[in-house]
């Protein structure tokens, strides 16, 4: 009997189908179950979306990090359904070898068959995808426990490095050039994958022409071709394109194309370069510090890089943030008000490029931080290190509408839960933007607790407004704001 099963496995291997043994086949696993799918009505779906917590929404945003977003899903994946069985694709390396022999691209899915909650969905959707007639050889990295022992080995599995949120997929040309990367919801939908792969394949001839030029032409021209090819990819994919990045590094050692600044370094590398210009050298070679730094040279450098190519999306945000950084450093050194306005303007530009992106969200907070006219508004009675300002006061507006029920005496107290240094003064009560009364303490007294004599019942948004500065850099200003009727 055992021999018979081994024969079946070998048969599968010979047919180029099942690579791993199927535990279900050997009776080692529970009977296969099909993935449950829960149809959702439009209304229910709408409601669910509205109720989605911020963290969940952000996680979704992170998942959909590539340009190929999934279409609106009709079904919600049933949770925790183990894989019915692994996909019957060739193993990663075998698929790539076959693709090479046949001169077609390979499409590799990296997933897990016996631990990944959505594996059932992967299997069913990719089984459908296989039947769509895409001109690719399908391959898989079916990462069951123990298949890939360590980080180092994972690093080598694909030319674009490892993934940490599975499933993920890559499209490689027959010569293993990276064509596209697919993550998040895209991978969980046959329709989305089909659309995304077709888009990638449509641009592939032009892209591969550039890649060929990058490989074969020496010097700057080769580097330019590599940069042009990288320009054709979504930025998150481009920065994982190690082959083209290596060509750029090798063929443009002196930064003649400027593209190395864009594709061969992350934001940390970018700031290293900017700081090297500001400081007149790197590390021990730095010549200037503090107010001596060469701010105008820094601005010129960043602007030159930004003009060197047509920047888009995240890359455009990154270098704008670099520019804002130089203005910020210059403002900190000189305190020229115009510089503060300029850096706020640049941050707002970063937001405009993509408000939902990480740069967009972060730049919004920075813009509000530096913008004199922008108060911090609190609807929840908690403050945290994100509300700090260092070197200037900021107006805080705390919604106390729920607590102020009618006329009478009320206490308002800042209850710090960390020991950071903070000043708070000038407490006033407002209703619908109109001043109601001042607190009982002098406006310039730094205090954590005040009393208000509320003269009448208040309608609309009721706020306590006051001026705050937090000096502590790390987790310093955190606490609760308590409004109580006395």
């Amino acid at each position, binding site marked *: 009997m055992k021999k018979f099963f081994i024969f079946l496995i070998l048969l599968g291997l010979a047919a180029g189908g099942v690579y791993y043994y199927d535990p279900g086949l050997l009776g080692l696993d529970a009977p296969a179950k099909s993935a449950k799918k829960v149809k959702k009505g439009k209304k229910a779906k709408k409601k669910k979306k509205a109720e989605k917590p911020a963290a*969940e929404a952000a996680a979704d945003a992170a998942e959909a990090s590539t340009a190929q977003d999934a279409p609106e899903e009709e079904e919600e994946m049933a949770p*925790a359904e183990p894989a019915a069985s692994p996909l019957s694709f060739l193993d990663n390396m075998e698929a790539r070898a076959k693709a090479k022999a046949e001169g077609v691209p390979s499409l590799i899915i990296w997933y897990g068959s016996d631990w990944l909650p959505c594996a059932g969905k992967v299997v069913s959707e990719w089984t459908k995808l296989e039947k769509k007639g895409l001109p690719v050889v399908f391959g898989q990295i079916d990462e069951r426990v123990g298949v*890939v022992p360590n980080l180092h080995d994972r690093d080598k599995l694909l030319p674009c490095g490892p993934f940490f*949120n599975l499933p993920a997929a890559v499209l490689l040309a027959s010569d293993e050039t990276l064509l596209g990367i697919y993550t998040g919801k895209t991978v969980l939908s046959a329709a989305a994958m089909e659309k995304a792969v077709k888009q990638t394949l449509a641009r592939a001839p032009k892209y591969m022409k550039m890649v060929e030029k990058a490989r074969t032409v020496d010097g700057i021209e080769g580097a330019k071709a590599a940069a042009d090819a990288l320009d054709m990819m979504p930025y998150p994919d481009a920065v994982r394109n190690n082959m083209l990045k290596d060509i750029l590094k090798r063929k443009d050692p002196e930064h003649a194309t400027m593209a190395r600044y864009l594709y061969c370094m992350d934001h940390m590398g970018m700031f290293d370069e900017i700081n090297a210009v500001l400081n007149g050298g*790197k590390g021990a070679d730095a010549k200037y510090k503090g107010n001596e730094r060469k701010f105008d040279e820094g601005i010129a450098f960043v602007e030159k890089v930004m003009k060197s190519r047509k920047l888009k999306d995240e890359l455009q945000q990154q270098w704008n943030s670099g520019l804002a950084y130089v203005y910020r450093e210059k403002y900190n050194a000189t305190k020229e008000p115009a510089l503060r306005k300029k850096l706020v303007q640049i941050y707002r530009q970063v937001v405009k490029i993509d408000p939902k992106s990480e740069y967009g969200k972060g730049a919004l907070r920075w813009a509000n931080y530096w913008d004199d006219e922008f108060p911090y508004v609190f609807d929840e009675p908690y403050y945290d290190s994100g509300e700090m300002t260092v070197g200037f006061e900021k107006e805080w507006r705390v919604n106390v509408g729920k607590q102020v029920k009618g006329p009478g005496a009320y206490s308002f107290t800042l209850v710090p839960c960390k020991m950071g240094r903070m000043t708070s003064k000038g407490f006033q009560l407002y209703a619908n933007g109109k001043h109601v009364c001042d607190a009982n303490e002098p406006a310039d007294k730094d205090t954590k607790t005040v009393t208000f004599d509320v003269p009448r019942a208040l309608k609309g948004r009721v706020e306590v407004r006051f001026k705050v500065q937090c000096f502590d850099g790390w987790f310093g200003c955190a606490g609760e704001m308590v409004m109580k009727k006395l």
Partner: protein
Amino acid sequence: MLGLLAVSLSALEPMALAEAADSKLALAPLKSKKLPGAVTKALESGDYAAVQKAVVEALKGKEITHKDAEAVHLGMLHELIRVTGAEVMTAYAAEDKEKCEFLEKFVTDAEWLELYMTCGLVPWQKKTGVDVLYRIWTEEKGKVQNKALAVALASCWGGGETWQKPALETALPNKYNPVRRYKFFQKQEKKGLLHPNYPNLKPWELRFVVANPGQDWDDASYEFAAKAINLPWDKYGIACWSATYTGTSKFGDSVQGGAYNLPFANESWAEATLLNGGVCGAMSHLGAVAAMAHGIPSYTCGQPGHCAYAVRTERGKWVGGFGGPDGGMHNMIFGHQAPTSYNLMEAVFADDKKVARAYRKSFCARALETLGKDSEAEKMWRSALKDSPLHPFFRAPLHALMLKRGVSADECHDYLVKEMLPHYDGHGVAAMNAAADLAEVVKQLPEKKLLHIYKLEQIALATTPSSWAVKLDELVQKQAESLQNDSARQAYLTDMFTAHMQKGDGTTFGQLLEWAVKTYVATPEGSKLFNKAFAKAAEAAGSGDGATGESAEERNKKMQAAYNKAIVAAAQARSAPAFQALTNGALALSKPDYKAAPLEKAGELAGKPAKGVLMRLSTTSNYDTPMLHAAMMTPEGGKCHTAKEKTPTFIVELQKPGHTTGCIIRKTNGNEWRMKRAVVSTSEDGATWFKRAEIDDMPKEWVARFPDGTRAKWVKLEFENAQPDFAHISHFVTYTR
């Protein structure tokens, strides 16, 4: 799921505490029975001093044994009040009627109370623990679905014995909410998104899943990591690398300042780190939270200049993430030094049934103590320790009782030698900590007997898996100070060195050598004492029985072998002073007749050869010459010989961090065909490495140039062999400006 509730209640006789049919799994849970009338009445009043009094009265008339369910229940209630504080509980019950009702329901539910009282740590003199339980109870409308998870949260988040100031008292409620954390795990479990072993975790294990709010991340981080990081179950040790390592934020701010996270303050820590990157602290927390969010126990830990984490892939097996598992654990039960603390914890709780029985006995012992029956209490503690001999919380009260009744020095000697220490093989640190309770009495013993006890402790220590993170200095210093003269101290050192030369794995030995070098080698007399002890130990370890009468040459050879072992141990323990002192000692004893070929490309790198203080090799072999390892860091050169391995690794620690320009590596003569592919990396914290140079076919002498601005204190060389092979180099010289 419910901890000790592993068998059906219906199978039990009322009040019976007979062990369940499948006694390998767990003891039968305590079945709740109406408590004596006076106790019930006191509970209704919410006056816990009165409850305590009524409990004591009820116990007076009973035979107190762990087999009597009512006695155990009363004992647990007594212990809960003792630990939490009668005043604290009374004040809590007085806060509102519902809380009073909850407390009454909780303490009369024997099964739930037992889960709480046996979860490792019960918050000390704080209401935080019971308040967490109350909040969950309220949320679940009086029917708590997962009592084990609830008590893990109450224990870990309640703080108490772990943290004098429970994190819950200072954590922002919108970020750390035990009910939200509880509901998160309930939801994830229901969806089948947690590790398959999660339902089997006991409360003490669940403590490492719910995390310590004083150190670990917010609720939203769990929710985010559960979605955004999905790896095979055994790969969460690398989950930290899902974020980019960066010391500069997307807006140019250093990670060392508050502005780094300011723009992302609306996000959870996990989201901000995954999307923006971070350094060791944030990345280790990210790895840990990713594991915990999938129901895998984990902890973060501090290391000198670094942060790391560990994940528990199966019972007893902690594996490192980002340079862990060693370091100061941020979540713990019996101390924070990994690995000895977690090894002790795993050993204590390894046998569910025995530890459960031991706990029941401990409640009885406490009750007996309260009733003034010290002799019976002492017997009960000993009985508990028979079931769970390593439990520090049972050992300490026994010692306190022994001291209270005026135990004699000889009695202590017999107790330690015959009763206690034989259980501590592999747990030497715990043995020394426990024995320290009796130190004042023990030091009255004659020197010979005292040394015998210390020797047994050293033998236990030598078999203890340890790491550089475990601090032994204070323990051994106290023992050394308890000895009256130099000859006793020399004997102490000899026993110590012998034990470690004969049985040790090297890690603890290295640390003890560091302590001994620092303590004794600074003065000529001390140095003499150290050398004599070392020589005697080398002789004893070499012969196995300390036989003498060998020739000078034989003795010299043994000494060299001992020094070599000690040098390797010192390097593994990352003790630069011991490494250097032992190298000097070995070279003074006999300098090998060896001279490395000079560097040919010495002038090719900018800067000067940096002073290296420690050379660590991944392996050694019989052909190795550890006394020449230090010389490899100098232009004069030395030599080494690793074992056959796929990635022989050499790590140089420089005296101080500096701007490194590169390094020169030279193969020893005759081994040019080996060691082809080489990679050099640098680090500023000894744990986070950045590749600086690589070569596929390394020449005899390779000049590895680093990028401009490379700061480093550690430089690592790895040979990536296709097949396991030896590595032997003569030079690994780093240059700094």
